[in-house]
């Protein structure tokens, strides 16, 4: 299944080159991209370390940035697919029911 993200490319994503500059590791969008990069990395790091079984497990800087990106995609895909579902059902608002319908495929894709 194709990433809906590619079909519905939001305006804040931009071309590949610009995305790397402003978005690397950033989880919060908007003009605070650069500032948010370190905070996002910190959040992702804490989230991962919470579930590690071994104390010695570490995450490389690049892997951390990539994980932040992966998590961002996860959230955005969940959001966009829910929107698509709500649009298909002719609704003005996205409710939990729409999310529930898209969740199975989302979890299979990730």
């Amino acid at each position: 299944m194709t990433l809906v993200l590619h079909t519905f490319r939001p305006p804040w994503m931009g071309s590949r080159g610009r995305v790397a500059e402003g978005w690397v590791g950033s989880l919060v969008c908007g003009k605070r991209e650069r500032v948010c990069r370190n905070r996002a990395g910190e959040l992702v790091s804490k989230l991962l370390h919470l579930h590690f079984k071994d104390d010695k497990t570490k995450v490389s800087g690049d892997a951390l940035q990539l994980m932040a990106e992966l998590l961002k995609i996860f959230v955005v895909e969940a959001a966009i697919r829910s929107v698509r579902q709500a649009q298909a059902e002719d609704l003005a608002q996205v409710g939990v029911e729409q999310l529930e319908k898209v969740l199975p495929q989302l979890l299979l894709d990730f």
Partner: protein
Amino acid sequence: MENPRLKAAVHYTVGCLCEEVASDKEMQFSKQTIAAISEVTFQQCENFAKDLEMFARHAKRSTINTEDVKLLARRSNSLLKYITEKNEDIAQFNLERKAKKKKKLEDENKNSVEPAEAGVVESEN
């Protein structure tokens, strides 16, 4: 950071991302939907973390690297392609940043050496 505060941080970030999607698609998200996405994301992190740790351990490493993350994204072809491209962008960006820092350091060293050289030339005359 304890669980509740971490969850709150995730919730805030998820909220921001959903807000951007909402304004872009001109659709509103109910508060419950945002909370649900936030909850799912938090839980999915657990799966990701455990998998990443196992992948690294399987490769006899204690540090998780980008190869492990790419393995995580294997289930969807377009996702894997996106993550692989993103990885190249990150590597390229970091490379350029290092080169800039190195050049800046070299320029600073050059500037501090020059006055001394001028002094040597004068004394020779």
